[in-house]
């Protein structure tokens, strides 16, 4: 039995059944993957800045965090494949038409760079090469943190596709917020200033871009306000804004505020990814989000043709 619409009303459908297939992805794997990838990518930027501005503690912690996060995200990604033993099939080709193909190549470039710079730093070997890899990881990390917006948007899922212009910016802000937040929580206060700034700046961008996404006026944005996704996104804003305020006001002086504020911003960032994921899933379950906008498009085109007198 397929799910049914509760209120058959303002449009025609086939017994209220969904038109689109529900994403096969699990929220923990894919939303988790997007969060961890963003955290890793932005942590590498923090690490590169730290290595060039003489902040050894922040540098080491960010490098280890980046490697840990990207490893977790790779595990989540492979775990979500229907045939995980075949994950290497993605490296048979490089397809610009497929964000997932591009993403697997971005990850295969970023992962070793993040790994090498962390290993060099922790083991104290090949310091110059390690620092060079650190800069490389920062640049590749920017791609890791933003391509995921394209990954979700390049689908027929109404909420994700309708947000395709803004989603990379939402995820970029969110990545900076999470890396800065966890950086501020881990690094000694004396070295944590850039992490705090990154967290607060990221939180501002994430919040503004989320508002932009939620208020685009498209029908599919309903799913960002309703149900489980709505709850997750409201929680996300509370954590993000609360944490950013705490960091901005007391992060410099107080160890406790720096830790709690940083973790709160990172939690907000994670909740955002889960909220966006759930909103997309919800938009595939109700045929309304497919039929109504497309019907409006067809009718508008027909009217235009009529008025021309064809």
């Amino acid at each position: 039995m397929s799910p049914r619409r509760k209120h058959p009303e303002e449009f025609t459908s086939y017994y209220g059944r969904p038109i689109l297939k529900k994403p096969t992805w699990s929220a923990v794997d894919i939303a988790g993957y997007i969060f961890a990838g963003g955290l890793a990518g932005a942590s590498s930027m923090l690490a590169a800045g730290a290595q060039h501005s003489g902040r050894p503690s922040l540098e080491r912690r960010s490098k280890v965090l980046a490697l840990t996060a990207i490893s977790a995200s790779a595990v989540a990604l492979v775990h979500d494949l229907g045939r995980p033993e075949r994950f290497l099939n993605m490296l048979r080709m490089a397809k610009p038409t497929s964000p997932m193909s591009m993403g697997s190549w971005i990850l295969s470039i970023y992962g070793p760079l993040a790994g090498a710079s962390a290993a060099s730093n922790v083991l104290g070997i090949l310091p110059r090469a390690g620092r060079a890899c650190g800069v490389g990881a920062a640049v590749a990390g920017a791609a890791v943190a933003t391509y995921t917006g394209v990954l979700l948007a390049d689908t027929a899922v109404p909420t994700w596709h309708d947000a395709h212009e803004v989603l990379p910016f939402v995820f970029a802000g969110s990545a900076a917020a999470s890396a800065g937040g966890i950086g501020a929580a881990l690094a000694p206060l004396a070295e944590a200033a850039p992490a705090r700034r990154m967290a607060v700046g990221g939180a501002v961008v994430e919040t503004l871009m989320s508002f932009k996404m939620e208020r685009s006026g498209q029908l599919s944005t309903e799913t960002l306000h309703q149900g489980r996704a709505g709850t997750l996104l409201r929680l996300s804003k509370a954590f993000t804004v609360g944490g950013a305020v705490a960091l901005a006001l007391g992060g410099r002086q107080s160890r406790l505020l720096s830790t709690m504020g940083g973790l709160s911003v990172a939690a907000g960032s994670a909740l955002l990814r889960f909220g966006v994921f759930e909103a997309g899933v919800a938009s595939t379950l109700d045929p309304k989000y497919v039929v109504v906008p497309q019907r409006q498009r067809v009718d508008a085109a027909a009217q235009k043709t009529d008025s021309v007198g064809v």
Partner: protein
Amino acid sequence: MSVTQLGMPSIGVPRKGFFTDTSLCIGCKACEVACKEWNSVPADTALELSGESFDNTSALGANSWRHVAFIEQKVPAADPSANDGVKWLMSSDVCKHCTHAACLDVCPTGALFRTEHGTVVVQQDICNGCGYCVSACPYGVIDQRPEDGRVFKCTMCYDRLGAGEEPACAKACPTKSIQYGELDELRERADARVAELHERGEEGARLYGHNPEDGVGGDGAFFLLLDEPETYGLPPDPVVTTKDLPVMWKRAAGAAAGLLLGAVAVFWGAKN
């Protein structure tokens, strides 16, 4: 053909397709059965009755490559004292084998490919079950078998086509509702059929997926419908998601550049 869309390469032979004329469909489901038989498509695990109509298949999916929709419509009687009449719509749905196939564009392994007949097929030994095509398809056709992990859909009987045979569903269709052939010829045939139905007063007859200018560049499997597409569970105006991919990549590049600039900015002037 562009950097972000694979489109329809020149295949050197006429493109093959389906024309499903739903005005001839009698809802016998021979196409569903023939497809399952020929392609060894497993039965769904439980026999479930929808309780709504004669349609217990419900939708296309990994284990249903043809799906016959049944729609009962009331026809109000002209005379208030008479009983209302009923109108039956039946339609055999199938993968559209799009010109701009989103599933094919986004497949990261190359498991989905364009055949020498112009159709779209999954190479089952390459698919790694990433599920990207499932969310990319604007028609909700391709799906994953959870117990297997890979995705499955209509192949337009790739094996039969290679041997010069027609697909099993078309072969089994007793009313010629499902017609297989060269796409150009089918489109001409369909135009003639719509004109004929309009002449007979069947106002609602229209083609769906026949137009090479539509959002997916025209379907390799197109339909003659007697009502709006959404009545049959079809999207009224699907657009391939990769049409917007160049914009998406640009936005992502902008966001990545902004992120790097921001990272430089947070260290600016912060001397230890």
